[in-house]
């Protein structure tokens, strides 16, 4: 049987499970492949094209298991580009960041300001959802030209973008560098299954963080929680 293929996207817990050998410990015979690399920021520069997570599903992902924000996985699965794995989801810390010396202090100050997000990616939906209570739609000025996550971080650091949406590792990195979070945009990530992987392999691929000791084994980048937060339009942006 061919190896079970995992695409980590930007999921830090999967990198930790890989580095510490947790997948192997679960008996999974697998390959770990980056489709959208997080080990090189230039790969996130889409040349100004409107290309994001959804387009990567349309193009076809070769992994048995991959992921994206739940909005995009939802639409991609409904369009036949894979199946949404309905037994678990995750919640990624996310927010809109500006420079420390920016005059933007609150969400209303973002009216008309270009906010860099990924096209049809988690940052796209979550930014709209977070700002809707503060701004009318015509004042939410999304910019897709800056590309994907690590490119947006780069543009923020180089002061080439006035406001950017970040999540997971780059979120913490920007915070540590002193950038100011204007609003939290935390959102849900869903798992996408491609083809018909062995159910046992599928179960083992999430097992490293499913054990009772998961908080210690996958921390600090992933924490198992059991509180029901399955409300996509409330706290899970």
């Amino acid at each position, binding site marked *: 049987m061919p190896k079970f293929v995992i695409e980590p996207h930007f*999921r*830090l*817990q999967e990198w930790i499970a890989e580095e510490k050998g947790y997948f192997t410990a679960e008996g999974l015979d697998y390959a770990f492949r980056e489709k959208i690399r997080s080990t090189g920021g230039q790969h996130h520069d889409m040349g100004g094209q409107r290309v994001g997570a959804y387009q990567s599903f349309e193009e076809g992902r070769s992994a048995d298991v991959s992921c994206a924000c*739940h*909005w995009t996985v*939802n*639409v*991609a*699965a*409904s*369009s*036949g580009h894979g*199946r*949404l*794995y*309905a*037994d*678990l*989801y*995750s*919640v*990624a*810390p996310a927010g809109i960041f500006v420079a420390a010396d920016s005059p933007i202090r609150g969400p209303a100050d973002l009216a008309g300001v270009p906010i860099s997000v990924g096209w*049809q990616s988690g940052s*796209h*939906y979550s930014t*709209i*959802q977070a700002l809707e209570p503060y701004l009318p739609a015509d004042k939410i000025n999304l910019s897709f030209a800056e590309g994907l996550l690590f490119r947006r971080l780069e543009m923020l650091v180089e002061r080439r973008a006035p406001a950017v949406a970040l999540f*997971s*590792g780059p979120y*913490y*990195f920007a915070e*540590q560098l002193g950038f100011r979070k204007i609003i939290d945009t935390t959102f849900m*990530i*869903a798992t996408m*299954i491609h083809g018909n992987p062995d*159910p046992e392999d*599928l*179960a083992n691929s*999430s097992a490293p*963080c*499913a054990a009772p000791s*998961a908080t210690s084994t*996958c*921390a*600090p*980048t*992933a*924490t*198992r*929680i*059991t*509180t*029901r*937060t*399955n*409300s*996509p*339009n409330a706290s899970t942006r």
Partner: protein
Amino acid sequence: MDTRRWGPGERLVFEPYTKEAHAETFDWIATHGIFAEGALGHLSYGDSVLSLAAAR
């Protein structure tokens, strides 16, 4: 970069992504016109998700 200063990161939730969540999400996307009309897909929840728990 000092990862010891980071928060807990992505939180894994071992709860079902329900039919209601799926429908609510789908409606929100449609309402906001993020995809072109007719490009949202037409498969049902049952046809577009996989659940090992439900299969047991």
